[in-house]
């Protein structure tokens, strides 16, 4: 595979990193009480849930670009 197609592939994986931004900064999407989870309003557990989700996404992007060649 030539280095330029490799680079393109890598940057399309990186677009995934935009997802946490949209999901957590678009407030109207989650500013409500229902549905609650063990008594915690949606607003709070939704944001708490995004911590591991964002980690997972970052990890996927990391492992897709984790070869010595892609460190650079």
């Amino acid at each position, binding site marked *: 595979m030539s280095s330029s197609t490799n680079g393109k592939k890598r940057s399309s994986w*990186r677009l995934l*990193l*935009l997802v*946490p*931004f949209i999901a*957590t*900064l*678009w*407030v*109207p999407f989650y*500013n*409500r*009480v229902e549905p*609650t989870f*063990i*008594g*915690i*309003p949606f*607003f*709070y557990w939704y*944001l*708490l849930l*995004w*911590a*591991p989700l*964002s*980690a997972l*996404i*970052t*990890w996927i*992007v*990391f492992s897709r*670009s*984790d070869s010595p060649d892609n*460190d*650079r």
Partner: protein
Amino acid sequence: MNWTMIGVFLALFVFVTILGFVAARWRHGDLTQLHEWGLGGRRFGTVVTWFLLGGDVYTAYTFIAVPALVFGAGAIGFFALPYTIIVYPLVFLVLPRLWWVSHKHNYVTGADFVRGRYGSPTLALLVALTGILATMPYIALQLVGIEVIIAALGFHAGGWAADLPLIIAFVVLAAYTYTSGLRAPALISIVKDLLIYITVIAAVIIIPMQLGGFGKIFAAVPHAKMLLAAPPAASLGSYGAFATLAFGSALALFAYPHTMTGVLSGKNPRVLRRNMALLPAYTLVLGLLALLGFMALAAGVDKLPAFASGFQQYKANFAVPALILHSFPAWFSGVAFAAIVIGALVPAAIMSIAAANLFTRNIYREYFRPQCSSAEEARVAKWASLVVKAGALIFVLELPSIYAIQFQLLGGVWIAQIIPAVALGLYTRWWHRGGLALGWLCGMVVGTWMVASLHFAGTVYPLHLFGFTIPAYAALWGLILNLIVAFVFTLIFRALHLAEGQDATAPGDYTGQSAQ
């Protein structure tokens, strides 16, 4: 006074102090060299970097300031969650480039990079001064955290004796930073995190059980604090404030000198990238701690006579200490308070080291002693780290603080203004150094003016545009103006053929290709 609590607290405090001094011998290096003292020899692997970067972010900010805002103002305080969720993807993308170019050219600070990239000592000076200035209120937040805990431990002396414990903690911090450099906070971070995790797990399991579950806790939260208020017509209302505080804080965090220090001390970019996927574990902790604010509301600690004087003096910042005293046996309160105080001292050490690196490299050596030896450089940095901490004390004493978090947000307004020069500079050389300098000036002046117009009690400035109101974090307003001015003047200066300055870096330096 409860001597069990104080005994446990002191034992833990003495233990980490000894650790701080022992750290000088850890991964032995020549501490008379700035990159050894101030970057730990650039040899830290994934685990140490994790603790070190975690030590930067999860501080008195997490334990005292965020829960205090949730306690006092409700949902808006939760902006810290999106902030610490999006900061990692951001850092993941950008900072490995900084690592490569810094490694290649032996840069120790962001200002070093700016100097090399734009051939401009002046722009580097502005970046350095901003870093030092912005670090002071952030350290001030840590000192407020320590102050609140000392009060909670029961030291209620009047006059100068009231400040004595804070001064002792401060001197201890200064002494081991001076002798051990970055190795001290790196080593202590590990103990600190253990204590913090123990405290957090206990707090989020035991306290909700005592209060009868999360349903009961949220039932006690007043309606107005539960969610963000829906925006009125023709305004973004609290939605704008919430989202911009989160986004602006994330941008700011990554421009802080101490974040750069944490990044540059890692041994390679893979270590950094892997960390960006692991660090959100802390974010979950931060979110759970933020909920302590509501638990304090539900427990009604502010209405208990035992805590009346604490709340009177420290306002909402006293919420978490009061909740801990209220919910735990004395010995465990000692553990929790030690965790918070150590959790404030570690970042204060890292921040003061980072600011000291800036002063030494980009001000002292640039303008006063260009010929100075590396031993002299390291010595000056050690002294500068003391001066920065003293500056932080002034912020604590001079600025009114209903919410400790305002200190950190104020620092963010300033540090965000170096983003065009540092972050955009990692990708392009298009911007003119003169334009960047003018943009910086406008951003600093307007950002500071906005916060001053709010009497330093808030940082969300409502801008009225074409009949529409947009309340947003002043750091972002400053940054937008900064970018516009930098853009326009880049075009103007280029049309006038003003000197561009020499670029010492090559495109391959940012990706490590030229290292081969």
